[in-house]
């Protein structure tokens, strides 16, 4: 199978054509040898995007999302690789569940799926999970995401043991003894009478994890950073040479807690939306390289879990299909970062941190790419999403960067219907 994509722009070079043969990027060949010639209509080709933090919900919560629907959404968002969190039912804390996820992902064939194993059995924080056996089955990291690893003692054991297997540890940072509120603690939560969770609760655990990483000289990755203090501590730690990396999500640089004033549960997630001061600090952290990755924390929920009282609603929003457009519109079009830097955040850095080997576009590399329309504004519509979740706060937003086509291993995984 040979494919030519012509009339395109490569995001980082002057090339206008891409050649694919047998699932790999190839040297140029004559058009009459091609099985398919795709006219990219002047749109821009990027390496397939990588999201190192998604919830695919399968096994156990198929009413929210399946591996097939979640990866279809990923392809529509321009992703060719996603890493799925282990808080499924059963928890992905053993090799059998890892293998099951990989099997379903291969059957769906929409996107490469790299499972993340639980750090502790049942994500209960009492015993280490079988990190070595799970690595053999295919995990690329461990995390108890959705929950923090609450005690410093257990976090130390996880960091030490995982380092034996060269497995990165990703932590959801939140000091639970500070209270479990439904939104950011501050002026808005006080005004509308919702219990808050403080930036201090996030900062305390980020500082703990940095201290442990420095003390043990092992890597640690901080999930979905939402606070100014977090950005500052990670920046300082990196300057000292601590092996800390960090991610954030589009909602933390596009939204603030003001949005919660109407009790719309599509603005409820964990960590919560913070104030403008923190939003700007996240953008600053993205700009200066403190934050390495943009992830979605894609968290589909059923309507019945969101159309309830604010405090009762589940945390999280879907994100795979809006992530690139939000990032491109709010970071690149506004001049905060370059398009090359955006690819570091959405492809090269996550691939490097988890050693996925993705993002290459040289001859012989897997043909993973996505084509984006950067020039025309489009309206993001929740009812067009391929995810089962409808819990997005971005319905109706005008954005740039609509996916036209996604190819994984030479095979089309998403094509915009014109």
């Amino acid at each position, binding site marked *: 199978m040979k494919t030519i994509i012509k009339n395109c722009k490569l995001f980082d070079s002057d090339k206008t054509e891409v050649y694919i043969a047998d699932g790999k990027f190839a040297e140029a060949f004559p058009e009459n040898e091609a099985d398919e010639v795709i006219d990219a209509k002047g749109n821009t080709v990027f390496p397939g995007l990588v999201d190192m933090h998604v919830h695919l919900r399968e096994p156990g919560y198929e009413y929210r999302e399946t591996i097939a629907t979640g990866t279809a959404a990923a392809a529509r968002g321009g992703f060719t690789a996603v890493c799925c969190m282990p808080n499924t039912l059963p928890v992905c804390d053993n090799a059998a569940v890892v293998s099951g996820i990989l099997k379903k992902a291969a059957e769906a064939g929409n996107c490469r799926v790299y499972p993340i194993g639980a750090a502790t059995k049942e994500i209960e924080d009492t015993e280490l999970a079988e990190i070595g056996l799970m690595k053999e089955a295919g995990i690329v990291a461990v995390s108890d995401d959705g929950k923090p690893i609450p005690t410093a003692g257990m976090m130390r054991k996880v960091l030490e043991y995982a380092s034996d297997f060269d497995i990165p540890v990703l932590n959801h940072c939140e000091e639970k003894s500070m209270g479990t509120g439904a939104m950011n*603690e*501050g*002026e*808005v*939560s*006080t*005004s*509308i*009478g*919702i*219990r*808050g969770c*403080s930036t201090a609760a996030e900062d305390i655990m980020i500082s703990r994890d940095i201290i442990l990483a420095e003390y043990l000289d092992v890597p640690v990755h901080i999930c979905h950073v939402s606070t100014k203090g977090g950005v500052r501590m990670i920046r300082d730690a990196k300057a000292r040479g601590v092996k800390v990396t960090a991610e954030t999500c589009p909602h933390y640089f596009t939204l603030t807690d003001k949005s919660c004033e*109407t*009790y719309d549960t599509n603005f409820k997630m964990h960590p919560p939306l913070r104030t403008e001061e923190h939003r700007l600090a996240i953008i600053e952290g993205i700009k200066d390289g403190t934050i390495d990755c943009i992830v979605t924390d894609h968290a589909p929920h059923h309507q*019945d879990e969101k*159309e*309830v*009282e*604010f*405090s*009762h609603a589940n945390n999280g929003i879907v994100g795979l299909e809006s992530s690139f457009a939000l990032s491109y519109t709010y970071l690149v079009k506004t001049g905060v970062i370059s398009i090359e830097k955006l690819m570091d955040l959405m492809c090269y850095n996550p691939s490097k941190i988890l050693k996925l080997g993705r993002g290459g576009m040289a001859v012989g590399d897997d043909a993973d790419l996505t084509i984006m329309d950067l020039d025309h504004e489009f309206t993001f519509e929740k009812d067009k999403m391929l995810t089962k979740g409808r819990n997005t706060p971005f319905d109706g937003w005008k954005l740039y960067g609509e996916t036209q086509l996604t190819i994984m291993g030479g095979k089309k995984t998403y094509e915009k219907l014109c």
Partner: protein
Amino acid sequence: MGLKSKDLLGMKQLTPEEIMEILDTAKTMKLVISSANKKTSHLQGKSVVTLFYENSTRTRLSFELASKYMGSASANISATGSSVAKGESLLDTARTIDMMGTDIIIMRHPQSGAPHSIANKIKASVVNAGDGMNEHPTQALLDMLTMYERFDTFEGKNIAICGDVYHSRVVRSNAIGLAKLGAKVSVYGPRTMMPIGIEKMGVRVASSVADCVKDADAVMGLRVQLERQKSSLFPSVAEYAKFYAITPEMLKLAKPDAFLMHPGPCNHGVELPTAVYDCDQSVINEQVTNGVAVRMAVLYLLMARRNNL
């Protein structure tokens, strides 16, 4: 005449003019309560349902009497003894009540924002009778009516509120309503019960009970929710009574003609010594009558809005 919105969700949603219209109407309604024949036809042919997910004595009863004095058909359901106990969702319950031809649903719910989440999905008017820690607008309106009967204007008046500010929907609604009419609100309570950013709601955070009530035109105590002691927000009732109660000495720091209010129910000897509860300056019992008057006014003005449409 009438309110602009279909619902009364909170003081946040009311304009100063609407608040004054409610208070002026309530003054008239109060005459009905004191008359021998407590019957008007303001709500004749209307149906009013109270839907309470939390306990209540005075709020529920005063809404019920208010609607009955004005001639409506009224009914009530509570979380126990209804399909709610079988796990029916709030939205399904609200739609069910709505489809029975209900004109007004009066709702109390432990979750902030619960009435907001049903209001735009049903035809009936929703009156918030207290939602979590958010608002209790008719309580603030009855408090303001009690003040209005004694002030010619709210402009520049000092209102002191002491107690558990964090968990209080009464404080939030009063702070918002009083600020809209130009009064100056001071609050005080244990720092563990003081929510972050409360000053952004336009109130002054005082440094002591004395600082809070000094030169006040009206002083309001709040109920200490004694179950909070378990969560270590204060160490003991004795300590609370010593450092945070409104004692006779404290009340002397307010203006000579200042009066004392409390939304009830009161823990005697905790936030207020009994001597203060019963003192000449106390208007706590009158607040209860004003509660019925203000609720009559709110129900009437919500229905009056419909007639305007």
